[in-house]
């Protein structure tokens, strides 16, 4: 996070982090991972409601798919048990696969939808799956006042 922020500050047309919005979990259906689709007021003027809701709904669907108890999970449990859980050293679990899909989706959403609007969605897994953190950036103009000391502009390499 810090690194990312620092990179953003180095950008020539700097955008600076102004605020963070946290979309909380929706516990109405138990402890299954689900996020509230309520549109935060801070994003009223930043992003269209439909886009946001669609993002959250897609994420919820991903998580539901990951946590689904069905044939796939039975198989996984049996195989794991029978191999004395050594299978975990070789294979990744279903949940982890879905998490990778989620990460990719969030990355894509950030690039296509949110970054152009000055927003950034943080993967919930980085926050313990408790919140979806949306960082709001503001345009500070082409700033020479940026605190970045690095002269490289737009360095995205971490």
């Amino acid at each position, binding site marked *: 996070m810090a*690194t990312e922020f620092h*990179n*953003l500050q180095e*950008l020539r047309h700097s955008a600076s982090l*102004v*605020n*963070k*919005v*946290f*979309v*909380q*979990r929706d*516990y*109405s*259906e*138990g*402890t299954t991972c689900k996020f*509230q689709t309520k549109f*935060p*007021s*801070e994003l*009223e*003027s*930043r992003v*269209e409601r439909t886009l946001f809701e669609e993002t959250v709904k897609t994420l919820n669907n991903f998580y539901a798919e990951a*946590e689904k*108890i069905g044939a*796939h*999970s039975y198989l*996984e*449990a049996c195989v794991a048990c029978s191999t*004395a*859980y050594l299978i*975990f050293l070789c294979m990744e*679990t*279903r949940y*982890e696969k879905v998490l990778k899909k989620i*990460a990719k989706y969030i*990355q894509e959403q*950030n*690039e296509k939808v949110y*970054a*152009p*609007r*000055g927003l*950034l969605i943080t993967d919930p*897994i*980085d*926050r*313990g*799956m408790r*919140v979806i*953190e949306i960082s709001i*950036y*503001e*345009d*500070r*103009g082409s700033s020479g006042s940026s605190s970045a000391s690095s002269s490289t502009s737009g360095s*995205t390499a*971490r």
Partner: protein
Amino acid sequence: MLNSAGKRFKPTKYIPVSTAATLLVGSTTLFFVFTCPWLTKAVSPALPLYNGVVFLFVLANFSMATFMDPGVYPRANEDEDKDDDFRAPLYKNVEVRGVQVRMKWCATCHFYRPPRCSHCSVCDNCVEDFDHHCPWVNNCIGRRNYRYFFLFLLSLSVHMVGVFSSGLLYVLHHRERLAELQTAVTMGVMCVSGLFLVPVVGLTGFHMVLVARGRTTNEQVTGKFRGGVNPFTRGCRGNVEYVLCSPLAPRYTVDLRKKPPVKIQPPFLRPDLSDCQIIIKVSDNGLHSTVISSKSKSSLNVLDETDTQPPLPPKADRYNQLKNQITATEESSLPGKIHPSTPAMYKFRPSFGTMPKVHYHATGEKIMMPDDPKTPAILEEGVRAHDYRSEPNLDLPEYGSPPLHRTFQSSPLQLDAYPASSHTLSLKQAHHLHQRATKGQLPALQPETLSSSPYKGVFSPGPLSNRNGSLSYDSLLNPSVSPAAIATELAAHPGLPSMGFHSPYLPTKMCHIRGPELKRQQQQQQQHQPVVVAAPGYSPLMQARGMGRHSPLSREREPSPVRYDNLSQTIMASIQERKELEEREKRQVIHGRPQTPAYGHDPGTFDSPGGYGPASACCPDGPRGSSVSRGPTPPAYGGSRDNLMGAGLGLYGQRTPVSRHATLGRAPRTSSSSLHTDHSSTSSSQGRPAFQEGLYRSPGHHPHSSPALPRSPSYTNQKLSYISALERTDSPRLGGPREAMMQGKMNGQMDCHAISQPPPPSPGRHAHKGVRKVTGVGGTTYEISV
């Protein structure tokens, strides 16, 4: 041995796990070495094989239970933590399948623990679906490793039973050679396994029951669902399925993923705001007024766009200012959802140093308004909040110069979500403060400058202006706040005038705009007591005054954008009263009636029922007529205090109708009489007309009236009485201390008529100048040009 800061190597915590591991591995090894060869020969090779497999299973599960992350939540990030740290409530309620579940704030991890999560003191972590901390595996048992722990118990029981029975078989066949090494060892193993079999099997059975019921050990032991419904159960089969076959949950703590960073470069796209255009107007007629016109699909009417405001600072500057203000506002807010039905357990958080950022949507959801009108409304409110923020800076000497520039600074042209957030935050904060107030946790108030000190006391140190502003704003929108604020203030200033009510001054347009929003607010917050919003009731009155006085100026303004059909009842009532007042004034001017304010001398007029000139003078026909229509006039209103008391009682007795009938004529008396009376059971309608009549009868009692203040004193008094009446009726529990205070004050006033100045309803009034300062309920001070 110190490994890292704060983490000491405690060998003692490894004793149980070492013992368990030693016993397990050692005993089984001995069993395999000494007993199994004979078993292989005598019985079958399958028996040791079976035992071997089971033992492998035990080991695997034991290792998983020991080394697997149970579902530890990492500490919350600073930014998330900041707004949460500021929370007043220790608990937050959430509904899980219809059952209210409390989420406790974890001070170590800085978030509200999700349901079923608990903080393990041994591991010093919050663990998801916390079951217990098992010393035998030296690990917490949580969501991720509960299955392995359960299987470990099962397999261990099976294993122990197997070992014991095999050993028994061996011993029974070697009875005559008990002294032999093998036999002796087998007997030793049998003893160990037999000894630990009982607690292990007991624990296994206990967990089997837990799994079937879908509970954790923590919940079972603490008796959470004793006699209640477990919202987390999925049925017996579902629970077993969940424990055994659910996918392995991910780890939260380690994030070695290297994500390619996303470039964020301005310019940024903005959503299409075509259907809700927001325009801010700032008019300068000595009043702070920010008018926002919004065009939306909602019933909120459209304002005509007129560019009356002076040029506004550039957008970029506004961003900075806005950001700072918003940050400050947000920092001062106390987001948090408080469910009214839950017994509140509020933790007073003195750490107001850190500034939180927004935001708890759950709470905001409660406060925010429905969709379409939401955007403009919230933005308006936010802007207003900013305005109010700027206003408390006006101290007594400053009232003369309404700093228009301040208005500009605070009213953002760029209407993004910040105002909304500040609004939501302020509301939440107000709610929190309200609850804190009722809990009596407020620090002692210092009666220094009445204008803002009470509210400073009410609010913890910090961006006072934010709080004051937002609270005053909240007093309009969240009526439940005002009584609390007033109650606390009153309680803290027993000697002070009971008028803690400071009606927030609102420009006309603001008042009008608030109407629909207030209505919506009230609709949304129906679970709150429908405390009649004193503030809006006042503001229209004040507005009326302002409008009346500055009629030429007001005419220059645009017509009110608000349609009256969507305003709440109280607003309507107050607006009606204002209109009536204006009409009366006009009539008075026409008829040449003296309009002497009794502001400075209201107490002096207590001995006569009609002590308030403009008040009584101003309500000639309308209220009288209405009063007559309401009921029979009680006798003896010739200036008796009883009459006043009766009137006050009547007023007090009234509930909602009070708002409707809160006429100016009644108000001045109400302030005294209502204070005086403590009984709400008296006949309402009878008392009221009498009161009014009494006022009307003696319109001329205005000992010292300066034309400079034609109406303001009476208005303030009226306002006072209005608020007092309303609050009395609507919040009886808060009325207690206030009433007592008022009563005492009233008595004092009644007794000594020589009080030159009435206990100012809002401290800091300057009756002798052209501008009056009115302190709103939230402590914000407004200037009213007279």
